[in-house]
């Protein structure tokens, strides 16, 4: 099972932007790993949440025909900590998209405050890794990921 780091989509505009939310809870063991008696959400996991939001956005833009891989975190600037009980919103947009991949950017917000500003690149690996063979099936976009979009119930906008 993959570790899905977003709970649901709040909005989804095909090929343009998406907002997903993740609720941080004290029940998650990794919140206790960084500092004793001071649980926070690790920045690396917030980057993962943003990557999942933006990655699904990029994959859906090509109807999940491409294997979309996070290839580069161009920038990740954090401004504040996130604590248990916070609702973490990942606001991602596609800046540029081509047959090779996509550049994305956006913010992570909590209570309307900017937690982080992020830029990242995704690669369509079948288009870029000439000479390397990958499995035929799309191992990136499993049913688990696609169910996130089904949960959002936007079947009239997004064809799965």
């Amino acid at each position, binding site marked *: 099972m993959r570790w899905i780091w977003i709970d649901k989509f709040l909005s989804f505009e095909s090929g343009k932007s998406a907002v997903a939310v993740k609720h941080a809870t004290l029940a998650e063991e990794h919140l206790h790993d960084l500092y004793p008696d001071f649980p926070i959400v690790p920045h690396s996991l917030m980057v993962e949440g943003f990557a999942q939001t933006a990655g699904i956005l990029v994959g859906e833009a090509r109807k999940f025909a491409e294997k979309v891989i996070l290839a*580069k975190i*161009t920038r990740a600037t954090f401004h504040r900590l996130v604590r248990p009980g916070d609702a973490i919103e990942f606001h991602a947009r596609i800046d540029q998209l081509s047959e090779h991949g996509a550049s994305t950017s956006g913010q992570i917000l909590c209570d309307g405050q900017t937690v982080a500003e992020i830029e990242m*690149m995704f690669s369509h690996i079948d288009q870029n890794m*000439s000479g390397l063979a990958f499995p035929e099936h799309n191992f990136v976009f499993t049913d688990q990921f696609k169910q996130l979009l089904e949960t959002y119930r936007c079947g009239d906008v997004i064809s799965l």
Partner: protein
Amino acid sequence: MAMSRDEIYAKVKEVLVDALGVDDEEVTPKATLRGDLGAESIDFLDIAFRLEKAFGIKIPRGEMFPEDLFTNAAYVKDGKITPEGLAEMKKRMPHFDFTELEKDPNIENVQFTVDTVVNYIQSKVNG
């Protein structure tokens, strides 16, 4: 209105600093993108996207960095560019400086420099 080489260079420099996270002074005309500035394959896509935005141009696949040439067995043999490969490169890459490659056709001498990018952009924006 045509852009001067200095204007193009300044914008290219800004793009490379943003895309590669290097310092201003590291970007010099002769600096190689991979060797000196540490570019990896995904960075070439990042650079192409940023140049498209900065100059309002479209960069077709394989035009600026025709990497497909270097995986073609007819053009590269035993780590060297073949005469056919060199002819194809000259046709498709007029923005590339062939001085070193003509002396020694080792594929290691296929190095894209900041000047290569500036030459390419100059041909795109000024025709």
